[in-house]
């Protein structure tokens, strides 16, 4: 059961019109490709994807699951959105509430075990090994956790375990003085009968959540709760900076998170079979470039999605450019995240000037990145500062003296006109 309903509000304009799991990652992928590929590679071929926030992009990306071999006669992928009932209709109010509302879906397969996943992390993991662990320990609940530096542990839900057995003795949610460095990854395996019982017993708890309610409930009841330690690449891309950084790690000479390995391939819904064309005047270094791109300018330290066009004379550095975006002639783009289907005019400069704290939303925009939401248009010749955000079709009048100062934002309501 894959929880993909979250907005991911800390990704700012990137998630204005799509749920966080649908956000592009690593050029041709979307974040949800990682858990979905992990599922099929682990032999999990029945997957319910729970959507809620802006599901259009997610739904069309997943389709009937062909890209992940999840188009099955029995099982396969099913999109589960909140629905109306004869009484008490509600949205998914919490992670566990979403599962509670889909008990009928799970019951229809009569499973012994249920795997609960989030849709917003970048990692490769064999869930079957975790299930084997769950079975061998005769656990009712197994939580995946990874060691983090102890000074960072206070940002996470921390698991205190019995070092001999791996059984969890206590939980601490964002503790000031953590007793352990094992951070919960939000990946759980439940014995279905135990989870079903816990969900039904707690159904009236508001915003029913796994970490806050269901697992403490199981633990208090005496169900064996185990910790499965995971020691490989796992990246939370919750903030703009961590999202940018995770993308940039892919262009290292030998990336820690290696997409080029034959084993454990990550699948995605390929939208184009076009070859990438690199023009005679182009210059690319230390970058990854997806199918269908047409490169006439200079690209370095960047991640390019499918069908991106970089105009002649344009310079793109340290940036993420998502699918179908066009960078105009002689524009300079530095440290920017530009979402899908954008048009950047000619002779623009993005990421120029000194860093300034955001006047728009300092909680979200707190790095020296230019963030441009999908389907935005930037007119010719403007200059845009650092730590800025742009969403919508902007016109020259939006830029006093042709300039958007660092820390400022232009967000035009993304509603249909």
């Amino acid at each position, binding site marked *: 059961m894959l929880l993909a309903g979250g907005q991911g509000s800390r990704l700012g304009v990137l998630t204005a019109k799509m749920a966080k799991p649908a956000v592009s990652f690593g050029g*041709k992928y979307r974040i949800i490709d990682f858990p979905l590929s992990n599922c099929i590679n682990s032999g999990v071929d029945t997957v319910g994807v729970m959507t809620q926030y802006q599901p259009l992009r997610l739904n069309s990306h997943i389709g009937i699951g062909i890209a992940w071999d999840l188009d099955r006669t029995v099982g396969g992928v099913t999109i589960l959105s909140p629905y109306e009932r004869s009484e008490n209709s509600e949205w998914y109010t919490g992670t566990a509430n979403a599962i509670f509302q889909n008990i009928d879906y799970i019951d229809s397969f009569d499973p012994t075990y249920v795997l609960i996943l989030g849709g917003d992390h970048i990692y490769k993991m064999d869930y079957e090994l975790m299930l084997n662990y769950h079975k061998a320990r005769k656990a009712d609940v197994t939580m995946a956790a990874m060691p983090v530096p102890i000074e960072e542990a206070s940002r996470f839900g921390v698991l205190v375990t019995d070092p001999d057995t791996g059984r969890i003795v206590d939980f601490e949610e964002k503790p000031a003085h953590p007793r352990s460095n094992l951070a919960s990854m939000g990946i759980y395996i439940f014995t279905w009968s135990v989870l079903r019982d816990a969900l039904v017993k707690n159904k009236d708890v508001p915003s029913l959540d796994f970490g806050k309610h269901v697992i403490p409930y199981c633990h208090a009841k005496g169900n064996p709760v185990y910790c499965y330690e995971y020691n490989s690449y796992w990246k939370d891309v919750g903030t703009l900076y961590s999202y940018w950084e995770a993308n940039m790690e892919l262009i290292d000479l030998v990336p820690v998170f290696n997409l080029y390995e034959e084993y454990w391939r990550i699948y995605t819904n390929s939208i184009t079979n*076009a*070859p990438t*064309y690199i023009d005679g005047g182009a210059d*690319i*270094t230390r970058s*990854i*470039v997806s*199918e269908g791109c*047409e490169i006439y300018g200079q690209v370095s330290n960047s991640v390019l999605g499918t069908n991106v066009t970089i105009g002649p004379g344009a310079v793109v550095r340290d940036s993420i450019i998502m699918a179908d975006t066009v960078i105009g002639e002689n524009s300079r783009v530095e440290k920017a995240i530009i979402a899908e289907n954008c048009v950047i005019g000619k002779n623009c400069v993005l990421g120029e000037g000194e860093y300034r704290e955001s006047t728009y939303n300092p909680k979200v925009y707190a790095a020296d990145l230019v963030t441009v939401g999908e389907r935005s248009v930037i007119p010719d010749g403007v200059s845009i500062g650092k730590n800025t955000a742009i969403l919508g079709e902007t016109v020259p009048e939006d830029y006093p003296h042709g300039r958007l100062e660092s820390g400022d934002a232009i967000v035009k309501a993304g509603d249909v006109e």
Partner: protein
Amino acid sequence: MKAIGIILAGGNNRRMQALTAKRAIAAMPMAGQTRAVDFALTNMANSHVQKVAVLTQYNTKSLNEHLNSSKWWDFGRKQGGLFVYSPTLTQENLNWYRGTIDSIYQNIHFLKESHEPYVIVASGDGIYKLDYSQVLDYHIAKRADITVVTTKCQEWEDVNRFGQVITDKDGRITDFEEKPMVMETSEVNCGIYVVRRRLLIELLETCIQEDRYDFVRDILVRYRNLKRIYAYHLDSYWSNIATVQSYFRTNMDFLDAGIRHAFFKEEGAVLTKANDFPPAKYNPGCCVRHSIVASGTIINGTVEDSVIFKSSFIGSNCRIKNSIILNDVYIGDNTVIENCIVESHNTIYANSTYIGDPNNVRVVVEHNDRYIM
């Protein structure tokens, strides 16, 4: 669509040199991400042909692997679908396909069991984009018995390897000359035909009784006065890849934005089996100019005027110029490759040099071990 499709993908010839040792021509990789047969298959799909047979005979491994699922061309259907037929032993037949006629005849059940009134026959080695329904409309409007798609072939092409077509004012074909010594016109047969299904069955059965096996010689040429055979002129890009030089040139044609966009960016883009290779990776020290690069490739060296196919590795300080590197090739450091086609899955050791003639590119086939200490 009122037609079923047949793609003739059995072929091989000596002009492909070592390249077809491994595969039928229809399975040749094209333009970075695709294979030749994708073009005919995509045309079938985009023309709403629902039922397509691919007839294959020579070294079918690559082709069968490529066509192992029909869903990439939208042929995973309850009605119709994609059928791959290679010759089989039966009580009546102990032969391989003895020619194009025989290949269709041996699968005549496919024709007899369909209900669509027309058949589109296409070859698997043509690179073009064509809405077959327009050919069919033409065929019906002309009240033709057989319609042959014809075109002017590429300027660089050796026209003498094609069948030449001579038509009257109305477009009816009055004469054929197969592979003539001297060309009278440059209008050549593209190997794409529209014919009524019942007529095709009739013609095939007659030909087999007379031990005639070649579609062009024994049907088109022989019946040209008896049947109304019309030419449909294709005026967009068309190329046949059945020689090493044509294969090379056709791939290089995709460096042209107009041709590339017509096939891949405009509506009805070429469909192919998804492979999910990661984006191509350009490492520090690489220099790529005027080239096509497919996904999964890692480049450390210099690449100019070349087409690099999927999942290749190009070592540091290499110089690849005016060449085609096929799928999954490993090229060690400091290697120079010019005017070559490097066969897929090859391993080229470091410090090697391969230089071909620009007018006669060299096919490089190495059988080196990739993983040596």
